């Protein structure tokens, strides 16, 4: 168990600067277009100080509370997969000639520092580690492994759950115990914001050593942090019962509930875009006009599109019900067959960003109870 330090906001700012000095491109949460996105930050001034998020099924709003909190919000539509498995990335490029063709790997990937990674997001990164680095052998060049190995992770524990969070049900939060280089917990103390800081790895300890020495956190401060986290765990707005969920969903492939969901689902694919563990991708080929140079890129794809399951010109999953069933059964059931654990980390993004507010926790519960039809009329923003 490493030492827990405590610091003020300036210490957090220095941490960002030290990471930048060490050659990391520091990515953190910022406010943009009335949402929370992950982009480059230079210092504490770029963080969403005083902002909070109001999330409900089908609804996301930012509110400026005007407090001093740097981390008074949960997560927006962005997730760290944007950097680990970018929306579009070159896998290789090649040239053809009468002697054959040669391929070359893409340019080296950037060295990032992920700043402000929530515990559910740490879990999501762990999930992606299993997908892209597992029994397949070599991870694809130009993608995951290279970014992952170089990325420095600064986690932020959650002291306020977001409106759609259910990490407690999934065992992925609201605090992290591993998977980070440095972890921060923000607490209020005597009217000031204080930050408990601890390292979770050798790399983390090295960076902390590079900062000016910090005070050791007091027992009181540590207790305050623990209480805040415990309260957050108890005040989640929803739960997902995970007992026997794997068998439940695979055993309910013909449940009429899927048709009922399909009456609402637009197959827009928002859920797959915002989900931090959705990894489905497609390969895109580009050829120069002279036919001599080609590139192969990997791009995000979604199982909600008709083209996703095209075979011999026809979609194998033609109905919206089949596609929704595929997504939810994969996320909460067959993912376990494939990778040993759930694909869902309880971040709530799919619930928030679904235009019609479909709630994966409610649908799982409905199937468990045997409710075939949804009898509530639900409008974005809540039950009518």
């Amino acid at each position: 168990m490493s030492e827990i330090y405590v610091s003020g906001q300036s210490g957090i700012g220095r941490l960002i600067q030290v990471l930048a000095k060490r050659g990391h491109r520091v990515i953190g949460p910022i406010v943009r277009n009335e949402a929370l996105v992950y982009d480059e930050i230079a210092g504490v001034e770029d963080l969403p100080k005083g902002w909070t998020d109001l999330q409900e099924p089908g609804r996301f709003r930012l509110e400026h509370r005007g407090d001093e909190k740097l981390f008074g919000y949960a997560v927006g539509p962005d997730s760290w997969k944007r950097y680990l498995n970018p929306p579009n990335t070159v896998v290789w490029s090649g040239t053809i000639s009468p002697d054959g063709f040669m391929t070359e790997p893409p340019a080296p990937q950037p060295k990032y520092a992920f700043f402000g990674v929530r515990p559910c997001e740490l879990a999501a990164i762990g999930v992606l580690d299993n997908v892209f680095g597992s029994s397949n052998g070599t991870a694809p060049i130009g993608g995951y492994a290279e970014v992952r190995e170089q990325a420095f992770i600064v986690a932020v524990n959650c002291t306020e759950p977001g409106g759609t969070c259910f990490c407690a049900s999934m065992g992925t939060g609201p605090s992290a115990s591993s998977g980070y280089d440095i972890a921060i917990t923000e607490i209020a103390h005597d009217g000031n914001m204080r930050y408990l800081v601890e390292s979770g790895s050798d790399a983390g300890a090295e960076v902390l050593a590079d900062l000016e020495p910090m005070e050791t956190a007091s027992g009181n401060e540590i207790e305050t942090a623990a209480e805040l986290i415990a309260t957050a765990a108890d005040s989640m707005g929803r739960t997902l019962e995970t007992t026997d969920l794997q068998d439940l969903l695979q055993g309910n492939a013909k449940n009429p509930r899927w048709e009922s969901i399909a009456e609402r689902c637009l197959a827009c694919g928002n859920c797959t875009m915002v989900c931090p563990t959705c990894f489905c991708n497609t390969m895109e080929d580009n050829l120069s006009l002279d036919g001599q140079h080609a590139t192969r890129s990997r791009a995000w794809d979604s199982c909600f599109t008709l083209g996703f399951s095209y075979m011999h010109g026809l979609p194998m999953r033609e109905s919206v019900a089949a596609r929704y069933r595929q997504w939810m059964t994969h996320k909460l059931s067959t993912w376990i067959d494939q990778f040993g654990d759930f694909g869902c980390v309880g971040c709530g993004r799919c619930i928030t960003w679904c235009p019609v507010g479909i709630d994966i926790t409610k649908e799982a519960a409905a199937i468990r109870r045997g409710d075939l039809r949804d009898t509530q009329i639900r409008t974005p923003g809540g039950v009518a």
Partner: protein
Amino acid sequence: MATQTDALIIDKMTPLPFRVRSVQEELSHTFTLDLEPTNGGFRFLPGQFTMVYAFGIGEVPISISSDAAEPGTLLQTIRRTGAVTYALGRLHAGEFVGIRGPFGTPWPLERAEGGDLLIIGGGIGLAPLRPAIYHALHNRDRYENMIVLYGTRTPDDILFERELREWADRSDITTLMTVDAADRGWHGSVGVVTRLIGRVGFDPTRTTAMVCGPEIMMRVTAERLLEVHGMKPEDIFVTMERNMKCGIGICGHCQFGPNFICTDGAVFPYTDVDALLHTKGV
């Protein structure tokens, strides 16, 4: 720029160049590429597939149809259906394709040893079975009765007809062919391929069946083997197909229930796919 050698040690997402020796027309929309590896031999197990890359156009998953005992030759039998397959069909000797693989699970040729081997192909489905037939013929004494049954639409649609007739002439295999429709020029059987099963002798308690063809053909054949001929689903193997982009289990496209067809298949025991084949849109 990476050299050819560097290309060899890259990874499963980068294709290796193979030189086209010839493009052989098989049927009206089907051709076989005879490919020469450019970096030594190409080793695979019968039933496996590769991702075949047409430079700058794209990739398609194609079952290998060559003899695994001849690593100097890779044969890929391809049906023209879209941009990539048409591009592959327009290649000439001396040009190059990219190959990634081999991928996927093989036919259970070891498991089948000591018993009867029942191989049933439909349409182009004979192509993924051909390496298994070659293997069994090279190791004939490891199997008891060896039966090859083949069905297709018309006599003009018989794949590998010359070889089927060669096998039919052998005394150590029973080979039967059938078509759905023919005129008097055809002296063979007419009728659905499942009708051939009752005409050959095999012990259903000691038989491994390998069935390959379009999904509906495999399903009706497996059902017939189960319901009429007393076989068990764990002794019947089929090969599934779905949209594939990566071939290595990271793109998500080929999911079939809990399975990735590219890594958990494409060859599956019928026990794994029976329920899934009866669930629409899974």
